[in-house]
């Protein structure tokens, strides 16, 4: 008996420590978006690409007395009469905010496709092919520059589409279904916004259309999410099917304009060619510098060396050149020898807290990438602001255009100087995270973080010093990890802030402040 109670006691103790909890996302239970200010004049804000908000026509909606509209109302009533628990879940999920949820979808897609291709038998590497996206390696490899561009285009397109949407909402002033018919329940809260065109459907249309360019394998999956959101919008009583159809059509047309820009923005040529890759080596050697070498086995071609030539949203090509900092220390200098020795010492004495910082900010393979991490930070803070969807989109667009231009500037600098990682200079430097397959100077993490902190600090001034501290920690994480020289991160922070300032300039003149 004594041994049995002993067994039970020990078992109970361990049971307490070994219990399994259901792991959920921290944004799972968010309440419906309830903006304090619906920014009714957002139709006057300055779009990114469209020259005017009514570039794409949206037809006058039928009158609320028309039989066509009555049929729309009956569809809502039919849905609301037998709402399933799955549909209720979808309503709750999407009502937290369309910009928020589509941002989470984008982050998931980036993480899903962010794995470098496995080598061929002969040691060469296959390249994802947009013309054959389902063949291995699936298109795209959503590495940090690709991801920054994807986030940038989608966020900017969503913003332009919502500016157009708000223009037409003000023009047509069609009341929401729950206002027209009191038997219809407002299940996602009452926004007071006119419902035509539906802003949720605009967002769905924009994002789904952009998949043709950015994640062609995902057109089907994202279309399903679009249908889920549209059904949720209708079932919640917030929009009729005619509101939704008009919104989706508007969103898709705006996206098509951005896709046309994207196809000509030089990203398609960013991979380079073997001749171009070899040229970087000879250029560095001619300048008496040790050229960057891939530290992967088999050696992998440098990642997207021509990404620095992509057409930015905030910075034109002359600005990108003007943003270039001076060179890093010469690879034969005593300065660099000292920095290499410092890097070795750092890695040999890494603390657990430093490892935590490295892992928290690593955002490497199979993750949302550094711009994605800053999207998550922004989203968490934006949720607390009770902004309208159009202001959400405007702020996400500012952040992601800054990140895309930071990627362009960063890649321009990396391949202008083509300098080695610390481990290339001293193979004894082992690392606490994988070494990305591109040159060290300047640090992408530092640039992405500093650009993000700069624009976010302008949007939310009370958080500005917190963002700067986070950016500094993100930069430090790369030194703790042993994958960067300190100078890579210091200069990266400076240049990133310069890029962020271009986003601030736009923010000050886009009509939203």
């Amino acid at each position: 008996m004594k041994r049995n109670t002993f067994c039970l006691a020990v078992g109970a103790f361990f049971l307490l420590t070994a219990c399994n909890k259901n792991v959920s996302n921290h944004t799972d239970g968010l309440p419906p978006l309830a903006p304090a200010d619906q920014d009714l004049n957002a139709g006057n804000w300055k779009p990114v690409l469209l020259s005017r908000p009514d570039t794409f026509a949206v037809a006058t909606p039928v009158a609320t007395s028309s039989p066509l509209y009555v049929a729309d109302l009956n569809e809502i009533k039919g849905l609301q009469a037998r709402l399933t628990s799955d549909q209720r879940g979808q309503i709750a999920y999407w009502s937290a905010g369309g910009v928020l949820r589509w941002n989470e979808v984008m982050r998931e897609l980036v993480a899903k496709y962010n794995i470098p291709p496995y080598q061929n038998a002969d040691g060469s590497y296959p390249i994802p092919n947009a013309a054959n996206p389902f063949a291995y390696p699936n298109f795209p490899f959503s590495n940090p520059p690709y991801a920054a561009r994807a986030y940038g285009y989608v966020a900017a397109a969503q913003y332009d589409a919502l500016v157009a949407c708000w223009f037409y909402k003000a023009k047509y002033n069609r009341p929401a279904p729950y206002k027209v018919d009191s038997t219809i329940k407002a299940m996602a809260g009452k926004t007071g916004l006119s419902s035509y065109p539906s802003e949720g459907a605009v967002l769905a249309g924009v994002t789904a259309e952009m998949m043709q360019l950015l994640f062609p394998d995902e057109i089907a999956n994202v279309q399903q999410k679009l249908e889920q959101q549209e059904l949720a919008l209708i079932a919640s009583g917030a929009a009729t099917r005619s509101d939704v159809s008009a919104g989706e059509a508007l969103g898709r047309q705006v996206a098509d304009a951005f896709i046309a820009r994207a196809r000509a923005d030089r990203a398609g040529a960013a991979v380079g060619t073997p001749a171009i890759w070899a040229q970087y080596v000879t250029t560095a050697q001619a300048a008496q510098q040790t050229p960057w070498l891939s530290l992967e086995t088999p050696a992998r071609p440098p990642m997207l060396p021509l990404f620095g030539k992509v057409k930015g949203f905030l910075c034109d090509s002359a600005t990108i050149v003007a943003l270039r900092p001076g060179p890093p220390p010469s690879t034969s200098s005593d300065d660099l020898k000292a920095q290499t020795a410092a890097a070795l010492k750092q890695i040999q004495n890494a603390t657990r807290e430093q490892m935590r910082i490295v892992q928290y900010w690593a955002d490497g393979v199979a993750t949302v990438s550094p711009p994605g991490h800053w999207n998550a930070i922004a989203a968490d803070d934006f949720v607390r602001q009770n902004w309208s969807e159009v202001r959400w989109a405007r702020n996400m667009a500012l952040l992601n255009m800054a990140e895309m231009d930071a990627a362009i500037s960063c890649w321009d600098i990396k391949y202008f100087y083509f300098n080695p990682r610390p481990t290339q200079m001293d193979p004894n430097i082992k690392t606490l995270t994988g070494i990305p397959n591109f040159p060290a100077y300047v640090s992408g993490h530092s640039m992405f973080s500093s650009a993000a902190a700069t624009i976010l600090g302008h949007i939310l001034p009370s958080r500005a010093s917190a963002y700067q501290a986070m950016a500094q920690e993100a930069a430090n994480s790369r030194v703790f990890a042993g994958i960067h020289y300190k100078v890579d991160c210091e200069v990266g922070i400076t240049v990133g802030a310069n890029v962020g300032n271009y986003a601030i300039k736009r923010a000050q003149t886009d009509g939203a402040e």
Partner: protein
Amino acid sequence: MLNRKKTAFSAALFFVLAAPAVLNAQTDEDAIMMTKKNLCIGGTYTHGSWDHYWEGTFKRSNQNLGTVSTQSVMLMGNYGITDKLNFIVGAPYVWTHATAGTLHGQHGVQDLSAWLKWDALDLKAGKGVLSIYFLGGGSIPLTNYIADFLPLSIGLQSKTLSGRLLVDYQVGNIFATASGTFTGRSDITIDRDAYYTTSLHLTNRVDMPNTASWHVRAGYRSNWLIAEATFTKSYTLGGFDIRKNDMPFPGNKMNATMAGADFKYTLPKKWNALSIVGGGMYTLNGRNVGQAMSWDAGVFYVLDFSHKAKKHNTAGKKL
């Protein structure tokens, strides 16, 4: 007597699997009991390595890892509360290394594991003795080592609770033992706040599926020598496969089939408080684990706190 085994060296066998799910210490996997008030203490060194692993079911090498090795030194104690109830406890210090690539090896004190072993039934069956044992065990990490750094992390940070049923049959000096184990594992907290499995999780908590295994061993067993062959299959009851060219992750579905051999030699006459152990194991097949080969060697000493001179253990097993 204590015959230590693989324990947390699952790091060699699997990328890492914390004890006691793979606390295949011979004492918690065998049908030998410490007699009352005898304490057996000792240590084992284990070395395991692999240069091929299974990415899902795709077996491959990785020239950016080369050969991954895990070494550990484990200290263990086994105390006879009664002749039928033993308490086993142990903890290892583990270190990992990769011969290629740039990733930094890890080292540290891993998990404390403990088992209560109850010899529930011994009965004559035919010419031999059939015994049934029930074991309950658990493990808990002793330090804040990093789990999300596979394949070089030294452990998975999960707290575990296990139940095992063990059946043994011995005729003369030949024996066979079979056991089945279920291990519940707690969720873990990692350093990053988002990760992708088969979808994106916006949290730093990771669901760690439970595990199960079955194990057989057979061979020769006497007071001074044990020599046996072993076979183990272990399964993770859930989890996901490593995607092509991705890195492993604590929440992966880790399965393995392993075969091995052990021996334990007890010194003769007045030295019979001392025993030496050794063995090896090879992973025949697996999923999201390394194809590990491991070997181990250890020394154990029995302290007799009872006031009578008696046999140290029941390995002789006569009824």
